[in-house]
C-alpha cells in the first residue's frame, strides 16, 4: 500500500453520510408506517361507505319484498304456478291416454260384417270380448259341427292375423246346445 495523501474531507463525508442515513432510517420507518396507516384508513373508510350503501339497498329491497302488494303478487303467482302444475299433469295424462287410444286396435264395421258372414246357420253369437289383443267370440249352436265351422269360416276369410279355436262345451239346460269359443287376433291396421 502506498498511501501518500491525507484527505480528511473524504472521511468526514463518509461519517456524515452514515450519520444522515442513521437519522433518516427511523424517519423512513415512521413515514412507511404512516403511509400504511393512511392506506388502511382510506380502505376501511371505503369499505364503510360500501357497507352503508349495501345496507341501504338491502333495506329498500327488504321493504319491497315484504310489502303487501308484492306478497299478494307472490300469492297469485304461487296459485298460478299450482294451476299450471295441475294443468301440466292433466296434459300429461291426456297425452298418455291419447297415446293409448292410438295404440289400441280399431275394428271397422266391414270386419264385423265379415265375422257375421262367417256365422254358420243355427248359430248365435253369445258374446264378444276384447282383452286388448284378442277378440273372444262365444257362439251357441245346436250342431256340434258349427263351432269349428265358424272358426274355419273365419280362417278362410284371411282377414285376421290368427284364429284360435278353443273347441266347444255342451249345455243341456233345455236342449243340447254347443257353446263354441274362438279367439281372433286382428291384423295390424284393422
Amino acid at each position, binding site marked *: *500500500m*502506498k*498511501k*501518500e*495523501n*491525507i*484527505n*480528511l*474531507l*473524504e*472521511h*468526514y463525508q463518509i*461519517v456524515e453520510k452514515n450519520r444522515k442515513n442513521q437519522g433518516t432510517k427511523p424517519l423512513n420507518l415512521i413515514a412507511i408506517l404512516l403511509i400504511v396507516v393512511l392506506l388502511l384508513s382510506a380502505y376501511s373508510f371505503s369499505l364503510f361507505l360500501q357497507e352503508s350503501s349495501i345496507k341501504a339497498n338491502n333495506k329498500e329491497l327488504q321493504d319491497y319484498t315484504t310489502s303487501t302488494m308484492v306478497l299478494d303478487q307472490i300469492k297469485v303467482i304461487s296459485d298460478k304456478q299450482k294451476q299450471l302444475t295441475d294443468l301440466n299433469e292433466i296434459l300429461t295424462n291426456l297425452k298418455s291416454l291419447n297415446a293409448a287410444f292410438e295404440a289400441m286396435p280399431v275394428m271397422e264395421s266391414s270386419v264385423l260384417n265379415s265375422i257375421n258372414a262367417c256365422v254358420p246357420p243355427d248359430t248365435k253369437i253369445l258374446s264378444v270380448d276384447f282383452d286388448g289383443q284378442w277378440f273372444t267370440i262365444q257362439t251357441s249352436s245346436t250342431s256340434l259341427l258349427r263351432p269349428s265351422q265358424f272358426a274355419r269360416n273365419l280362417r278362410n276369410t284371411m282377414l285376421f292375423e290368427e284364429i284360435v279355436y278353443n273347441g266347444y262345451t255342451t249345455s243341456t239346460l233345455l236342449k243340447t246346445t254347443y257353446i263354441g269359443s274362438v279367439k281372433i287376433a286382428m291384423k295390424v291396421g284393422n
Partner: protein
Amino acid sequence: MPLSIEIRTKQLLVVQTTVAKSRVHYKKTFTVDLEDGWVDSKGIINQSGIVSTLNQVLLSKGIKEKKCILCINNHSVIYRELMIPKIEDKRIPFVVRSEMIAALDLTTDHIVDFVILEEITDAHKTSLRVLAVAIAQPALATYVNLCLKLGFSPEFIETATSSVIKLVDKSDLCKNGNPTIFADVEKDVMRLYLFEHKKYILIRNIKLNEIEEDKKTEWISDIEDNINKMMQYQFTRESHTGIEKIYFFGNHPLLTEIQESVKENLSIETSLYPKPDFLSGGEESYLPYLNAIGAALRK
C-alpha cells in the same frame, strides 16, 4: 484555478493554484490576518468574522473561484507517528484508527487519516511507519461549514505536515539522503521538520514569542538554540550523521536574517527554500505559501 487555503491560528494563507500531473502553477497569493480566538483547537470559532474578512479580500482581488483545498495548520489537528505490523491494506485504516484512539485517548468521533512513511524490516518482522492525523469531527465540520458559507466546494482537506512531506519529496532536495532540516518559521511558531534518507523523521514545534525591539538578537539566538537542539538530536540517531543543510521557509519577516544567523552561528549550510522545478508562476514570494502549495499536490 482552485484556491489552496492554509488555515493557521492567526492567519489564512491563500494561493490560487493549478496542479497538473507534474507541475504546479500559482497565480495570486495573499494572506489574511485573523483575530485572536477566531481559530483554535475546536476549529473555526468565528465563522462570520472569517467569512466576512475573506470575502472582502476575494472581492478586492477579483477572485471568483469556487473550488478550494484546505490545509489545516493549527492545534485542531493531532499528529502521531505509529509503528504497526504489516497487514492487509484494507485493514490498515482500522488498525491505525484503533491505535490512535488508544494512544491519544481520543473519542470515537475523531476522524483519523494517515500516510505511510516507510516499511521497516527488522529480524524478519516487517512493520509500517505511519504518520497518523486525527481531528475531532465537530472541529472538522467547522472547516467544511466555512467553505459552504464562502460558497466554496472543498475538494480535499490536508494537514501541514503531510503537505511538507509531499513538497520535500517532490522538490528532491535530499538527493544524497543526508539529514536535512526544513524550518517553517511563522509569526508565532516555528516548525522544524527533520528528514533523513529522503524520509520524514519527525517534527518539532517551537512557540515563538513576540519580538521586542531591543531584544531581536536574543530572540534570534533562541531560534538558533532550538535548531541546535534538533541538530544534536540527529547525532543521537542510529546513523550518527550530522545535519547537512537547513532550508528555511515561512512568512516571518525576519526569515532571511534568521537564515543568515543560523548559518554563521551554527556553522551549517543554510538556504531559503529554493523554488522547486515543478513550481511556476507568480511574482510574489512563494516561501510563505509552501504549505498551501504542498497541500495542492496529489500523489
